[in-house]
């Protein structure tokens, strides 16, 4: 190990502090999910699984969890079914208007969710589409389309088109070529972005907030509980959500990484 300059030591200090800033809150959430005291203060009381037991006995929370799983699954399927062809067209065809099409799909990713949520609420109201899980599924799949499109586009831009030409020359039709040549080439990008869409849809608040009907999703349930007061039950379900999200996201990021 070479000797560090003063500025490198300072940099290490800032980096260490930032890492603590990033992870201390998550540690707090997890620690207090096992703490028997209902008030979240130090020093810690006894270790307990009570809050997890309460989560498992909380009907409303479990229903909301079920709703969230349904919404996230349906939205993910839709983002893939719509997003992959959209990415293919943007990659393959040169037409005026396609640039606008791409920008529109990517727009909700850099726009505050509330704008998209309100646009959809206004639209549904004018059309008379009832608010509820169906509306939320349409909303999520549309707002998250950009995730699949951008990731698949990145992968397609590095895809060797000669392979497709070879397949056509060998007599395969366009559909066969897609399933046997193109799809295997972009498969990991599709799976990775699907996992990401699922996680984001599962946690989504700003769009859901405006489209929700009588059925709550899990984040909406937690959000409305929080406004009444906080209980360690939230920490328990939160710990479970974070654990599941971490697994999905690490899987997603490693699928999306380029192996060159």
């Amino acid at each position, binding site marked *: 190990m070479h000797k560090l300059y003063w500025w490198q030591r300072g940099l290490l200090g800032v980096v260490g502090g930032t890492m603590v800033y990033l992870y201390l809150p998550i540690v*707090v959430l997890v620690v*207090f999910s096992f703490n028997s005291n209902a008030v*979240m203060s130090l020093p810690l009381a006894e270790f307990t699984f009570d809050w997890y037991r309460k989560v498992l006995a909380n009907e409303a929370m479990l229903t909301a969890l079920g709703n969230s799983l349904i919404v996230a699954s349906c939205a993910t399927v839709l983002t893939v079914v*719509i997003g992959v*062809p959209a990415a293919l*067209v943007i990659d393959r065809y040169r037409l005026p208007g396609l640039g606008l099409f791409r920008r529109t799909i990517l727009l909700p990713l850099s726009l505050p969710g509330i704008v998209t949520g309100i646009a959809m609420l206004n639209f549904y109201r004018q059309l008379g589409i009832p608010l509820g899980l169906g509306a939320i599924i349409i909303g999520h799949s549309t707002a998250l389309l950009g995730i699949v499109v951008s990731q698949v586009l990145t992968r397609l831009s590095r895809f060797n088109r000669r392979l497709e030409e070879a397949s056509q020359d060998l007599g395969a039709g*366009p559909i066969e070529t897609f399933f046997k040549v193109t799809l295997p080439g972009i498969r990991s990008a599709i799976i990775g972005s699907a996992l990401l869409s699922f996680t984001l849809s599962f946690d989504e608040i700003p769009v859901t907030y405006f489209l929700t009907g009588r059925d709550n999703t899990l984040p909406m349930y937690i959000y409305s509980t929080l406004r009444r007061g906080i209980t360690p039950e939230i920490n328990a379900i939160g710990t479970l959500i974070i654990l599941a999200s*971490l697994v999905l996201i690490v899987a997603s990021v490693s699928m999306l990484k380029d192996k060159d």
Partner: protein
Amino acid sequence: MTPRQKRYWLGFAGVFGVPLVWTSLFLLIPYAVMLAVSFWTRKFPLFVPDFQFGNFRQVFADPQYLEVLLRTGKIAALVSVFALALGYPLAYFLIFIVRTAKVRNFLYMVVIVPLWVSYLLRAYVWKIILGTGGVLNSFLMWTGIIDQPSGLFLYNQTAMIITLTYIFIPFMVMPIYTALEKIPPRLIEASHDLGEGPFWTFLRVVLPLSWGGVVAGATLTFCLAFGDFVAPSLVGGPDGMLVANTVQTQFGAALNWPLGSALSTVILLLVLTIITISERSERYGKIDLD
């Protein structure tokens, strides 16, 4: 039309049909409807189709709305500055100080993974840290630094800036990391060989070459923080409500959809303007390394 061309366009229609219809119907038209509603008139309890600029006039003339817009701009700018101040060193550390690729990739993953982990929970946890009966207060009392719980930590702008900065640091690190990664080490070696110390090398070589990443990260952070309503409603106080909370009220208790749509349209236009400017400046400031 030759059969070949015919096939080309048939393929185009077959592949493109569903995404085009879906995106127009569920994305483009909703934004247009929101724009249209922002010109409507409210006749309590109904909204009547109309074309008048009253709602926009109200947004910019009523000090109440102008104030909240300015406050939101200030908070979003501060969050971007703090996230940059912490995110840049982190990205720099990962690229230039960490020597092994394996460790670097692992640490990078550790830094950016929280980005996608439940946004709500990451905002919520600051409520239990900063609250009156919360972790920070009880820690300070336990160690004897204070003897009364303080209400100063939560429900104010500082709490909101702490929470939003925490949420957006990964957003800042990601583009800066990508930009720093592309800087060829030989440029830095050249600068050292020419006698520049680490400080001037950073200022004259590294910083200009990573400027695109800084602009991209700051843009995203500013735009997303500008429209956030979850963090302010959890940790912001009465003086901490942002423009998105005002929008939220128009669709709830205040029941004024046209005004809410006008406010939302203002956010949309502002964000689009910022994104366009930042893309232009990124292209303009781009230094070709090849």
